């Protein structure tokens, strides 16, 4: 029984892989079939999971099992959910702005807190800390490699930050350009950003390569299973 199930799963997987890779020949019927199938299956699963794992425990269980106190603590989300359900009908889609406002307020606050506590302060603090004399000078002789690393790091960060500068120069001589100093630093910043994007490109390619290799391996195993060897 187990072998036949494996065969069926292998066959489904092989056929779907071929349908997706048929895109190389051009956007065709089979490729779109596979795309729409993925959309249907994924949304069905997510809907079932959200109902089972979120709506039931967070909304329905307190109403059924909880007492008066639980109702009080659940009324607000229940009302908001009803307003969202009303959005399903185009005529009432404006009602949805109240729950969406609540969501936007939370996400905005978490973004502000996360960005300042989790990225800006630690990253800038590390840059300053890397110039700690204790770390740069080991015993009597300075650690030249660490010093070079710290200096390159600061130059890279400052110049790549100025690459994104938005304001144009106010001087009449170059009205449509950014200030000369910022322009010069932006040119250096481009090199550092190019290096980072190149490293990320290599990373994305090798991750995708592993996925391709796993698909080819799976197809090879299925073909061999098909021919019984």
């Amino acid at each position: 029984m187990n072998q036949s199930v494996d065969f069926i799963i292998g066959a489904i997987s092989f056929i779907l892989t071929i349908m997706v890779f048929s895109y190389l020949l051009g956007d065709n019927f089979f490729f779109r079939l596979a795309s729409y199938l993925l959309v249907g299956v994924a949304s069905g699963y997510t809907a079932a999971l959200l109902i089972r794992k979120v709506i039931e425990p967070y909304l329905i269980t307190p109403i059924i099992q909880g007492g008066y106190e639980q109702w009080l603590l659940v009324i607000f989300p229940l009302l908001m959910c009803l307003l969202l359900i009303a959005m399903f009908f185009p005529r009432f889609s404006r009602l949805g702005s109240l729950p969406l406002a609540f969501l936007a307020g939370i996400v905005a606050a978490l973004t502000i807190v996360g960005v300042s506590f989790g990225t800006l302060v630690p990253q800038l603090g590390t840059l300053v800390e890397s110039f700690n004399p204790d770390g740069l000078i080991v015993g009597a002789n300075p650690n030249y490699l660490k010093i070079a690393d710290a200096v390159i790091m600061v130059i890279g960060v400052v110049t790549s930050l100025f690459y994104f500068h938005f304001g144009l120069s106010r001087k009449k001589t170059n009205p449509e350009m950014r200030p000369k100093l910022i322009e010069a630093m932006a040119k250096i910043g481009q090199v550092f950003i190019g290096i980072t994007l190149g490293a990320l490109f290599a990373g994305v390619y090798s991750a995708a390569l592993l996925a391709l290799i796993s698909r080819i391996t799976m197809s090879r195993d299925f073909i061999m299973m098909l021919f019984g060897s």
Partner: protein
Amino acid sequence: MNELLIWIALGVVSLLLIIIKIGTGKDRDGNIRAIIAFEKLEHVISKLLENGKRLVIGLGSGYQNSLLSINGIIGLPAVKCTAKQSLLADEKPLILSGDGSLASMSQVALTETYRGLRAIEQYKQENSFFAGTTSMSYTASVMAESHAKENGGLFLVGHIRPEMLLPVDLVHNKASVSIVSADEPGTQAVIFPNCDSATIGEEMYGFVLRTESQPWLTASLKLQDLLRILIVIGLVAAIILKLFGII
């Protein structure tokens, strides 16, 4: 003590935004450089309307595909602007969102735009929906929807994953236009060499479209520039103090 300083700094930054906005007043352009990807977007929107083609706007997938990403909000002005300009066109824009809250927000944006133009009957719910619940199924959905003949361009903005290069390649093969403004660095690295109208890093927040919120967007960019300069000055000063062992 450190935490208190951070909270105070956040308060000051919020005040700075309001002060800068009051300072720039009605000045819509505010001496801000135009990001060429978004300049091109305005050109594409009008061009597509002339040619009777449709613009597909992808607002990106949510984090862990179940909730709102702050970067997805940036694309909503494009929804309003396209809807307004395509009022008399025969092809309305198609808005595909990768998370439920963004889909609802784009529907609210569409209804308000058409209601503002006294043309609420033009609003169709199937022009703006939740296209895919996982980021890969969102990619597949955008590719499938981009196949239609009446599509003339693709604009992706928000939380865009690296695999979204596939719909960009599909649109490229159909000799249509694609403009991408992604928040994931990996996506920027993959889209940058393959699409000439793509933003990198912070340029995504330079999305200023001629809408009523433009003065605030311009003030935001000025605030970002100011913060950038303050950060660099603070950094250099702190490094010098650190070297001399003062801090």
